[in-house]
């Protein structure tokens, strides 16, 4: 195999810690093997990160196509584009693909895989072969899902509520549930790998208190991946067995309880949304520190808040069930806990703001995406608090208000952070600089398009437009048209980076080790890094975000 490091080359690198270009060209991970086999059988975490990035982009566009169909159909109050059944399948596909095949792996499996070993000073993750297996499991599940689509899709909504999914739905429920079941294993193995890596492979001097905040957030995410996903697995098994063999647990006719499904499903799915947002929060910490050339204010509080969100996130699932028929006392308890879980997110936002005080702020694309994140995530989070208020939720539950809230977090938040990460670490991953001007334009298009798409949906929800509605009363049309128009602008923002980033791969300026003058071990390696990351394992003796020296040299 061509990607085994040549020992003679390695030897030649020792003692030449400062050298860059020729070393990079000889042993960069991108050039260590050109065959398809060297990519498909790689155990290099950086290559696996790249493989994931390509896959999730593919699935994102499938989910986005479903969204486009939905928004086109909603231009008119009558269902002109699709039939009722077709529309129901469209929103189900949108949910299933976006949640499990895009959002959940979006940052951990791409940037997490690529960066964690680099950030902690390790050569790879603890279990490199398991990492590759995770990707194959993800791809298998993804192909399964494509097959489900071709076979006619499924129409239960991504939430598979019983008894609709077990006894009444006509689509390919078991196939869809199986696809999600399979991708769950990819999640669990990824989380396992990250947890063990962060515990055991930190280089000398890299104490927990010196870890970049991105690592803290991925670690917290991994706890959720490992502990929550199995509950989804058993829930999917239960509905599949009920559908396939009539082994009903949720069937009221034999004394079962349909609500039990909801408890089990949301016990996973609420922590799942923290899987989607915690890595994004970690990315934003990195982008703010780098954009302001200043240590993150309140490092310990920000690190601790990630763990607090992960822990508290397990105890709030009942806020999806306030009107389901659960007891008043259960609802009151879940409402209280849902308020509590919002506090650590607020702590992060306040700390980021304080970080900018007396900083050295540069409006490069990564920082701009961090700002769009903060703008949109704050609004999404505060509307989440509104939903946590029981009496308000009774009115807006299962309406477009909820849809707007979670898209503010998942698109306004997670996708902002994903784009920010992409624009920040692109030079490291690919070794080229891209057009900063176009990056800034994308951030602006994204912010405007996003708000146009989803802000009207808050109004629609309060007005009483329920979610998953194919036809709607005519007086809601204007707001729906604005929303669809915004989606078109948003679509442009999604496609633009594909163009200038791919362009940069061929024509961009070669990137130096540290184009942003940022701190972090990943920036001490060449861009792109060599296959084994470091010529010699680093020894850390400085706090994280140690920008003092930079500040002294550059800005005085």
């Amino acid at each position, binding site marked *: 195999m061509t990607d085994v490091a040549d020992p003679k080359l390695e030897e030649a690198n020792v003692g030449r810690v400062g050298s860059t270009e020729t070393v990079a060209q000889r042993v960069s991970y991108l050039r260590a093997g050109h065959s398809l086999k060297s990519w498909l059988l790689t155990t290099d975490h950086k290559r696996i990160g790249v493989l994931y990035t390509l896959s999730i982009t593919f699935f994102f566009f499938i989910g986005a196509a479903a969204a486009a169909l939905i928004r086109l159909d909603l231009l008119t109050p009558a269902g002109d584009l699709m039939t009722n059944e077709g529309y129901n399948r469209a929103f189900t596909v949108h949910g299933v693909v976006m949640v499990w095949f895009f959002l959940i792996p979006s940052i951990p499996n791409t940037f997490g895989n690529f960066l964690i070993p680099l950030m902690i000073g390790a050569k790879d993750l603890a279990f490199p072969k398991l990492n590759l297996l995770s990707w194959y499991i993800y791809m298998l599940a993804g192909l399964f899902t494509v097959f489900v689509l071709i076979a006619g899709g499924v129409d239960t909504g991504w939430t598979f509520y019983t008894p609709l999914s077990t006894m009444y739905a006509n689509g390919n429920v078991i196939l869809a549930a199986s696809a999600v079941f399979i991708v769950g294993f990819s999640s669990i193995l990824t989380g396992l790998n990250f947890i063990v890596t962060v515990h055991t492979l930190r280089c000398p001097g890299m104490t927990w208190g010196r870890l970049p905040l991105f690592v803290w957030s991925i670690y917290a995410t991994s706890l959720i991946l490992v502990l929550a996903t199995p509950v989804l697995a058993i829930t999917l098994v239960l509905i599949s067995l009920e559908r396939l063999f009539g082994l009903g647990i949720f069937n009221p006719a034999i004394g*079962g309880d349909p609500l039990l499904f909801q408890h089990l499903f949301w016990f996973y799915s609420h922590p799942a949304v923290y899987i989607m947002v915690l890595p994004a929060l970690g990315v934003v910490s990195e982008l703010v520190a780098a954009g302001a050339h200043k240590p993150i204010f309140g490092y310990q509080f920000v690190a601790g808040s990630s763990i607090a969100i992960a822990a508290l996130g397990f105890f709030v699932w009942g806020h999806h069930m306030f009107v389901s028929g659960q007891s008043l006392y259960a609802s009151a308890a879940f409402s209280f806990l849902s308020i509590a879980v919002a506090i650590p997110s607020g702590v992060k936002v306040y700390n980021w703001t304080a970080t900018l005080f007396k900083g050295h702020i540069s409006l490069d694309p990564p920082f701009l995406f961090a700002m769009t994140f903060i703008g949109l995530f704050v609004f999404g989070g505060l509307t989440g608090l509104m939903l946590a208020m029981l009496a308000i939720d009774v009115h807006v539950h299962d309406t477009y208000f909820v849809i707007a809230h979670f898209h503010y977090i998942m698109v306004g938040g997670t996708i902002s952070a994903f784009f920010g990460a992409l624009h920040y670490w692109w030079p490291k991953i690919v070794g080229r600089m891209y057009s900063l001007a176009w990056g800034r334009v994308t951030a602006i298009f994204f912010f405007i398009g996003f708000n146009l798409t989803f802000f009207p949906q808050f109004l629609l929800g309060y007005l009483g437009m329920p979610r998953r509605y194919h036809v709607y009363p005519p007086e809601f049309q204007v707001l729906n048209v604005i929303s669809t128009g915004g989606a078109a602008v948003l679509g442009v923002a999604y496609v633009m980076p594909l163009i200038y980033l791919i362009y940069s791969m061929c024509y961009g300026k070669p990137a130096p080790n540290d184009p942003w003058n940022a701190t972090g071990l990943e920036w001490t390696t060449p861009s792109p890094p060599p296959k084994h990351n470091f010529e010699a394992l680093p020894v850390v003796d400085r706090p994280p975000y140690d920008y003092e020296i930079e500040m002294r040299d550059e800005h005085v």
Partner: protein
Amino acid sequence: MSDARPVTDPFTDPLQQHRAAMMGMYVFLGSEIMLFGGLFCVAAAVRLAHAPEIVHASRALHFGIGGLNTAILLTSSLFVALGVESANGGRAKITSRWLVGAAALGLAFLMMKAYEYRMEFTEGLLPIEGVHSRYADDVQHLFMNLYLIATGLHAVHLSIGILLLIALSFRLAFGSIKLPERAIVLVTAGLYWHLVDVIWVFLYPVFYLAR
């Protein structure tokens, strides 16, 4: 003690690699506990909602067979523990025999389970679709559904464990696993087996001994 354990990338020393292997297995077992935890929560919810019917349905199960199975599985765990001990001592052939013994006990468990399912089938209690069943009430039907799912899922995990032990015992017999350097492989496999045993130790009273 001179550490002849091999160190593979990305690890830099044997202790670090050992720690990682143990932690990895414990994290994986944590996820398995959450998987069965969901089932136990369902069982608890059903019990809370229909206590008298559940007790009645539980009485219909054959706790003697279940008890025997519990003893079989506990003994197999003992065999695995002894196998791990001999692996640490470098005795590959003896380890192999302990593992084969444990796997055989596992198979005995499965055979007893099949026999038990057959008994329940003739008693009209097994919830097979299309087959006439004789439940005392609907909740017994619900209980038997859950019983079949839980014991079935456990049997799947046990079967994986049996295959794992057999595969390892073959490799040990042919000398492909160097002991005691690679004893960690046996330790982690043993942990999996013990978990499957522990899960049964909880399943048994929940289903057979609900009073």
